């Protein structure tokens, strides 16, 4: 780092603090749908990462050799993430969600929506259905994988529709 590459680190630091406050507030209090929640969080994380990488790590002032050392990681990261996409499932689109097991006798996935003790359907904090995948382990009987109930809120279907809209 030579002297002609001076910048104001305090200004960058204040931006980092500002984005962190925005991010935490967005993550904890944003009431909207999950895609907007996650989108906002990722934008904040990107902005913070960009500031650290560009200014604090001085990449803005580096030559082509140093930039060339880091550049291959961009396609490699993309390959690693996108090559795994088939396994990430996005459960609604997957024939066999992770955690499910094909019932060899019925030839179907044993999947049902979770209910509480009173029979109310369970939804997670984002209004997504909580599913239970029953696993049949050969002939030894069914084993149910129960979701973690600490994060669940039991509401009726009518309450769900009122909050998240019908057909969500």
């Amino acid at each position, binding site marked *: 780092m030579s002297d002609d590459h001076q910048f104001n680190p305090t200004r960058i630091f204040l931006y980092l603090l500002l984005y962190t406050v925005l991010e935490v507030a967005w993550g904890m209090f944003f009431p909207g749908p999950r895609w907007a929640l996650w989108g906002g969080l990722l934008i904040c994380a990107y902005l913070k990462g960009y500031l650290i990488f560009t200014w604090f790590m001085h990449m803005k002032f580096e030559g082509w050799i140093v930039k060339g*050392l880091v550049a291959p990681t961009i396609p490699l990261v993309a390959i690693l993430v996108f090559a795994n996409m088939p396994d*990430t499932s996005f459960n609604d689109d997957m024939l066999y969600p992770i955690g499910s097991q094909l019932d060899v006798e019925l030839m179907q996935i044993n999947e049902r929506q979770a209910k509480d003790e009173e029979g109310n359907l369970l939804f997670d904090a984002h209004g997504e259905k909580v599913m239970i995948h029953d696993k049949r382990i050969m002939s030894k009987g069914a084993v149910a994988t129960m979701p973690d109930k600490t994060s669940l809120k039991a509401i009726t279907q009518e309450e769900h529709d009122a909050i998240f809209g019908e057909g969500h």
Partner: protein
Amino acid sequence: MNDAIQAYDPAVDAPAHHHPIYDYDSGPPVDRGKFAIWLFLGTEIMFFTGLIGTYIVLRMGSASWPNPEDRLAVNLTAFNTFVLITSSWFMVMALQAIQQGDQARMKSWLLATILGGSFFLGVQVYEYIELVDHGALPNVDIFWSTFYAMTGFHGFHVFVGIVWLICAYVGALRGSFTKENYLRLELAGLYWHFVDLVWVLLFTIVYLM
């Protein structure tokens, strides 16, 4: 004339502001240390990409995922994130101080960086102790497995960074860094900023999403 050429040693006889150039020097035109640290950081990027990629696969493939806010102390960790970002800023200030030849300020900022990193690690250890006390062990479910894997490896990197910074601080006390020679401090700083950068992503993914 011939004797003079043979006696010429560029490492000794070259003007002080010239880097000695040897005819067999085929290395890249960049500081060796900087070349090495960026090569290393490239591998580190892939290491954490592997961890985060695995997390994405497991999370998106799970039928349900707990809300992190219900399980983790987000407020405490948000404050801890402030501390780590602040320590990264301290590191930049230390480097700027030595570039201006101010040894005293450089030592102060460097010590503040070490204290900031140590505080971050201390809070993380405290968080682990509390979680384990409440039965949140890595083998309980996939949420805790991925949580401990990602934050644990990052915590180890913070620990390595603190040790590295302490070594740099000892060097600073011995007067190893000058206005003209501070590359080793810059390399330690690059690693520390990288640790900060990774935490920015992990905090978002693990604690807020």
